[in-house]
């Protein structure tokens, strides 16, 4: 009963900062998505609140939605790597592993197998959530091989098309022609086809999206997690712009995300038949939490 | 107890059973309650390619590991090791210690003037005998050459009894786990096919070994 590790000991409840008490009393732990789902953000104690990311950051927004969408936050471990995302992810009330550069999917492979070994009858959700550099450049072989090995966890790539945290260098996911640090005359080759690679490597559920629609975004995240529990590796390729390196005025960040949704981040959902059947089973009506 | 130690280097060609005979020497020492350590050669194992194996035999536990760089005894299973330089160690007597023994499978003179001078200076006992012929004569196959060579070695060192040797030969051919290279393992099975029955193989091998030991006795080569 892992929720227990979230419950303050009776004697010390009054000595804990309110913050921690509220996480259980008003937070999403042990509660149903209908009460504390992503669409209800603002009405319950969130897993991540204050964070050191830039003002108006679309990635920070997505990370808030991501944590609100978790079906089982008390049994979830997130794994990230160097990059902007971890600044907010590390502030969440969910265990977070910050390993070495780009090693998130290798760590997750070990972690997932160890969980399945230790807790064969329980769902422990492992989610890697890292940037385009960590997933597709430095961590590429570990990302791909975890998929090829059919490791059952969810991979989320926060694609801002640039190395944001290190100051705006070209990444494999930058657009061809983009003028960035380390591509002073424009990037010479195309953006890597991440979702195609994922499908080729055997991911059973792959979505490319710009997360403009909270409800849909939350649903996709949950589908990816459920499919990883039962079927195989899942991958979400999410547009999370860098308003600093791409000089997007804060007020235009949302519009930019919508524009991307019309071109290179057009919503695209791929699933195997097995996943389709699973989703059919889990979502008989509108967005209903799976029985654990 | 006085320390007795023979560090032996065996040079031969792939297919001559160099590694197999090293294993049997080791096994015989073990059976005699003595000590031996083997270092299998780690490299290409092809027919007629150079092969080297190293055996240390002693009446006390052996600590050192690795190739035998400074041998007391050098065994040359094929004259081409010397005449054609088919050896990992060139010249063949490299590292030989003073008062050592060199056993060469040949009945012709394969040593040149310089070789002889070096060996003389080291006070080396050089034993030459055509073991291939001996193998053919007794076992009917040159594949038993290694048994003849080993017989000479065991006769010269005189560290084990016939029973110990026979047991070791049995273990090698009838099983009990050992690590063999792919090459030697397939060679063993080739010999087995030739003899059809393992028992026959064993008997013939033992005959060759006995003959070789008798030869050592008759020639007074024993140390």
């Amino acid at each position: 009963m892992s929720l227990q590790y979230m419950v303050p000991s009776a004697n010390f409840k009054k000595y804990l900062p309110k913050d921690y008490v509220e996480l259980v009393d008003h937070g999403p732990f042990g509660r149903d998505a209908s009460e504390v789902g992503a669409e209800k953000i603002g009405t319950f104690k969130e897993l991540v609140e204050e964070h050191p990311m830039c003002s108006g950051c679309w990635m920070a927004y997505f990370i808030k939605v991501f944590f609100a969408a978790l079906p089982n936050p008390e049994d979830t471990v997130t794994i990230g790597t160097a990059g902007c995302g971890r600044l907010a992810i590390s502030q969440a009330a969910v265990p977070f592993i910050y390993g070495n550069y780009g090693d998130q999917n290798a760590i997750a492979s070990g972690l997932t197998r160890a969980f399945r070994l230790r807790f064969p009858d329980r769902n422990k959700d492992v989610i890697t959530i890292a940037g385009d550099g960590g997933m597709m450049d430095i961590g590429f072989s570990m990302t791909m091989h975890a998929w090829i090995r059919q490791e059952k966890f969810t991979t989320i790539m926060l694609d801002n098309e640039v190395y944001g945290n290190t100051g705006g260098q070209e990444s494999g996911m930058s657009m061809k022609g983009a003028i960035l640090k380390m591509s002073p005359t424009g990037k010479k080759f195309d953006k890597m086809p991440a979702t195609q690679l994922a499908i080729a490597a055997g991911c059973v559920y792959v979505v490319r999206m710009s997360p403009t629609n909270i409800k849909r975004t939350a649903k996709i995240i949950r589908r990816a997690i459920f499919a990883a529990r039962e079927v195989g590796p899942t991958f979400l390729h999410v547009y999370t712009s860098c308003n600093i390196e791409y000089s997007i005025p804060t007020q235009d960040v949302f519009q930019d995300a919508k524009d991307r949704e019309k071109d290179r981040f057009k919503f695209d959902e791929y699933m195997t038949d097995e996943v389709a059947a699973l989703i059919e089973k889990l979502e008989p009506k509108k967005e209903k939490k799976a029985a654990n | 107890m006085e320390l007795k130690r023979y560090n032996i280097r065996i040079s031969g060609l792939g297919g001559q059973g160099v590694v197999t005979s090293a294993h049997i020497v080791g096994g015989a020492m073990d059976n005699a309650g003595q000590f031996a350590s083997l270092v299998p050669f780690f490299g290409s194992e092809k027919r007629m390619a150079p092969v080297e194996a190293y055996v240390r035999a002693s009446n006390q536990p052996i600590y050192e590991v690795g190739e035998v760089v400074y041998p007391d005894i050098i065994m040359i299973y094929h004259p081409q090791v010397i005449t054609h330089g088919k050896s990992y160690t060139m010249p063949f007597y490299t590292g030989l210690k003073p008062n050592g023994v060199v056993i060469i499978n040949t009945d012709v003179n394969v040593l040149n003037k310089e070789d002889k001078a070096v060996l003389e200076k080291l006070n080396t006992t050089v034993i030459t005998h055509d073991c291939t012929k001996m193998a053919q004569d007794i076992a009917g196959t040159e594949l038993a050459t290694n048994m003849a060579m080993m017989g000479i070695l065991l006769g010269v060192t005189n560290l084990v009894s016939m029973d110990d040797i026979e047991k070791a030969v049995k273990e090698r051919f009838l099983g009990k786990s050992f690590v063999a290279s792919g090459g030697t393992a397939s060679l063993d099975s080739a010999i087995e096919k030739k003899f059809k029955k393992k028992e026959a193989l064993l008997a013939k091998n033992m005959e060759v070994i006995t003959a070789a030991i008798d030869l050592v006795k008759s020639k007074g080569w024993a140390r």
Partner: protein
Amino acid sequence: MSKKVNVGPVGYMPQSAPSMGVELSPEGKGLLYGEIVEEEVAMKEAAKALLTMENPTIFPGPQVLWDWKDDVADKTNAILELASEIPNCRIIPMPDYRPKYPKIDPEAEINPNHPNLTILHNRIKACIFIGVHCHYANLSLRMIRSGADCFTIAMCAFMGHEEAMASIRDVHASDVRRFKEILIQVRNELGIEHTPTMPPPNPSLPDEKWDDLSPADYGEYRHLIMSKKGEHVTDVE
């Protein structure tokens, strides 16, 4: 007696106690100033520090703050009993180990990434670490010795801590109670009058009213948490 490990501040770059030759005490023994002593000796000196130094504080860690194991209830009872016997005692928890943005409230918690924020802000001169995982306890104890003049006491469920001025190992609820008894005895010897009093609750901000909270409460940031289809908010920052 020699003091290998003494109250700080020892300065910019502390030398670790183990590197100064301090070793963990064997079972049944304690550590006092880095020397292996009878547990009672260490407990007495620790009690004296808690009774005579300013702002004695107990820092309970995650292992006693949450109800994850059967023995937590008894242990927390014992800790509160102990706290009630220390005049002017406070309880400031160490609820987690991550570096916490933007900054901790030093009156509400202590964080291993910068423990001296809490020690110095509250002028704590004697403290107990209990229920903190050993790795983080060691980091905190050493940083406190580096930058503050605080007598540190480790009550450890495992092998104790070289870095603390007083270290008790294999601590169960019964050991906390034994320490309490020794503390009362020392208090009486020192002639300090005291009626058991519970430390004040956590002074962190009052509860938010979750029942009537709505996105409107988020003001100009509301679009970031609640976007509606077709909505495009321009009047921000």
